[in-house]
């Protein structure tokens, strides 16, 4: 290696070190917290994932421009129509994850190491630097006893002591940070190798995974199919929906049934790493006939209007060629009753049809419904990242609770019948201060006897609301 390239290496090492320390710095982390929070608000006020026409209509670039700059061109160029999948948002998240990892290794692990070190001081000048420092005539044993009663672990070295408690409070944040890295990684893995798709399948039919809407780059779609054996709804007496059920079978490429389960909302089926959820529902069709014609399957579509305050599905059957006479069939769900309304006469004629009960309009015109067929909305999902994310969740909950603990340290030494001691804590300042005061006053009491109680408790001083 020439000395020149050596210098160059040294230069790059310096740059690297500098970059890492910026990357792992707290001001950057705080900025990222707030910037990500701010960017996240965009997607909650701007409608997301609509078609381009939607933005062209609602955010014109001429005339009244929202805030003077928010035109559809700006929205689409910056990906504000799908913020959470915009490249710059993902880049922010990656930067955040990197900062977190850097910070954990560069800052936190050394911090923990240093926090674990036992240090002993026997110089009053050193101890006086602490905000909480005092000296009381007492023996070292008494001091140790007092601190042990407060839950401190005490180590001694000659006439010097070091005590601590709540070290887990230093471990907590590290666990928190690692768990967030796990969650971010799990999310990424899911996006790269998983899929999520929704299908509306009529009662009795099958669906498969040949056409996934937005698979990840490394997603492998399942070969098997799902058969909907039956779909039904449980209603309460007042007509409101109690629960949805789909009886599903997994059918492999040979047509064999591999598994079967009835799913409902909050109770999905899992097969081959894929979860099948009851997500939505609809009315597919009704079986209908006029007089003695064969049964006709009439497809139903969701209607814009809401009838009886509920979602409604319907179909329109023209009865003549000039769109004068027609029949509208409508239903609110799978409870069976279908409303038929005849238009063309002076007044629309409403008829209520119960399955299996023919309605005779005139002796020569009889309408009959055999049944209403539902369609079940099944959401299928495969997410190999879930394991990582759930592990992260578990660790995060533990770590964040541990982070509440305050790490307290005390130092002391005895000299000529007097103990000198000092301490500090990282979070529970007030509580620690009271603990410290109580140690001091207890030692004092031991010396002077309980009759001569001193009012060293800070509480005696601050009980009165002071302003």
């Amino acid at each position, binding site marked *: 290696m020439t000395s020149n390239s050596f210098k160059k290496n040294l230069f790059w090492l310096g740059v690297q070190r500098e970059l890492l320390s910026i990357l792992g710095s707290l001001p950057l982390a705080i900025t990222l917290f707030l910037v990500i929070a701010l960017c996240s608000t965009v997607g*909650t006020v701007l409608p997301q994932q609509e078609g381009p026409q939607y933005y062209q209509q609602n955010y014109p670039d001429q005339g009244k421009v929202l805030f003077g700059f928010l035109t559809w061109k700006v929205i689409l160029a910056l990906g504000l129509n799908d913020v959470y999948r915009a490249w710059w948002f993902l880049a922010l998240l990656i930067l955040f994850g990197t900062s977190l990892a850097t910070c954990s290794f560069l800052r936190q692990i050394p911090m923990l190491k240093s926090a674990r070190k036992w240090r002993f001081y026997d110089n009053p000048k050193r101890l006086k630097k602490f905000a909480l420092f005092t000296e009381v005539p007492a023996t070292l044993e008494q001091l140790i006893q007092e601190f042990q009663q407060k839950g401190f672990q005490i180590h001694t070295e000659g006439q010097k002591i070091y005590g601590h408690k709540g070290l887990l409070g230093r471990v907590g944040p590290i666990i928190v940070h690692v768990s967030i890295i796990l969650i971010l990684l799990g999310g990424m893995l899911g996006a790269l190798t998983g899929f999520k798709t929704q299908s509306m399948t009529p009662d009795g039919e099958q669906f498969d995974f040949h056409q996934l809407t937005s698979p990840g780059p490394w997603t492998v779609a399942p070969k098997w199919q799902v058969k909907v054996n039956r779909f039904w709804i449980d209603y309460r007496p007042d007509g409101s929906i109690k629960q949805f059920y789909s009886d599903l079978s997994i059918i492999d490429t040979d047509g064999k049934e591999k598994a079967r389960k009835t799913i409902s909302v909050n109770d999905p089926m899992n097969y081959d790493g894929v979860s099948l959820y009851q997500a939505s529902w609809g009315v597919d069709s009704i079986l209908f006939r006029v007089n003695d014609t064969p049964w006709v399957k009439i497809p139903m579509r969701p209607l814009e209007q809401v009838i009886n305050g509920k979602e409604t599905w319907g179909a329109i059957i023209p009865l003549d060629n000039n769109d004068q006479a027609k029949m509208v069939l409508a239903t609110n769900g799978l409870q069976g009753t279908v409303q038929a309304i005849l238009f063309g006469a002076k007044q629309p004629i409403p008829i209520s049809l119960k399955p299996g009960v023919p309605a005779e309009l005139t002796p020569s015109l009889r309408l009959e419904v055999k049944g209403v067929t539902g369609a079940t909305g099944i959401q299928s999902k495969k997410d190999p990242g879930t394991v990582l994310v759930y592990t992260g969740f578990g660790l995060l909950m533990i770590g964040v609770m541990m982070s509440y603990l305050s790490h307290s340290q005390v130092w002391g030494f005895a000299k000529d019948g007097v103990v000198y001691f000092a301490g500090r804590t990282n*979070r529970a300042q007030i509580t620690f201060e009271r603990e410290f005061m109580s140690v001091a006053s207890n030692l004092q009491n031991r010396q002077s006897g309980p009759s001569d109680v001193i009012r060293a408790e800070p509480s005696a001083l601050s009980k009165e609301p002071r302003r």
Partner: protein
Amino acid sequence: MNLVDIQNVLDNASFATLGVATLSYWVYAAFKKPKWISDLASIGMSIAALTTTGLLVARWIESGHPFPVSNLYESLFFLCWCICAVHVGAEWFSRERLIGVFTAPVATLLAAFASLVLPANMQTSAPLVPALQSNWLMMHVSVMILSYGTLLVGSLASIAYLWVTRKAKNLELRGSSIGTGGYRRVDKAETVQSEPKTSPQTSYAFQNAEGGTLTMETEAPVATALQTSSLADILDNTSYRLIGLGFPLLTIGIIAGAVWANEAWGSYWSWDPKETWSLITWLVFAAYLHSRLTIGWQGRKPALLASLGFVVVWITYLGVNLLGTGLHSYGWFF
């Protein structure tokens, strides 16, 4: 008297008690006397915590559905209960009554909104829709609201701190996670403290809010005087501890929601507005916690972040429902 009557009585009693407590805190804050009025205020908050407990218990017995909340009315009173309970805890912890000047009116407004503004049909209990019949969900909703209550009282303590220190300059605070405040500050108090051995009396130096020094004397001798916290320090640390408690609750609440969503809908995160705002809340309070670790950020800046958090919690809790879209628009809550 049946359960519904009991609820009506407790509903009005909570509102009235909170109103009285608020006025008492304000009178006391303005005139600094009489002492009994500050006691009255504290007792009022405790009574309100009990009446709201009674109200919620009566409601759950009546409706028969499991804890805790099936609609906005119950949710508002649950949050009101949380604020009262956390306030009582904070007052006990800090031995300070100033926080009540800020917490009591917030609790009062919640009770007023629930019992006076909310239309009657939104006050009665209703059966749960299928998506809401889940234990994870119950856990999610109750922990979320508990965390909102804790975070709100915590940020109100920060707002109280901002109020107290509004004229102060060069604040140096203690109680940060890296322990920057663990060292003795050098100020006027030091002169009082450095001569205790010659003095038969012990002095406890307090730096009061306006930066001056106020010395309390005790008769018994203690070798060296201790430097203890000022009112500003106490408010600051109370806020830190409360937010430090609310943050884990929020974390657990969000995770319970994510797990529930994954079990019920197949996706633990779908960026729906309510979800997103709970993340924003989480990020803002994470920023607060980290700002306390940064040496250049001591003093009023973290308190300003906590105040931002106060606003954000309200947007998450109520504001998003006003937008009325997304997964969480089943009802008027969580």
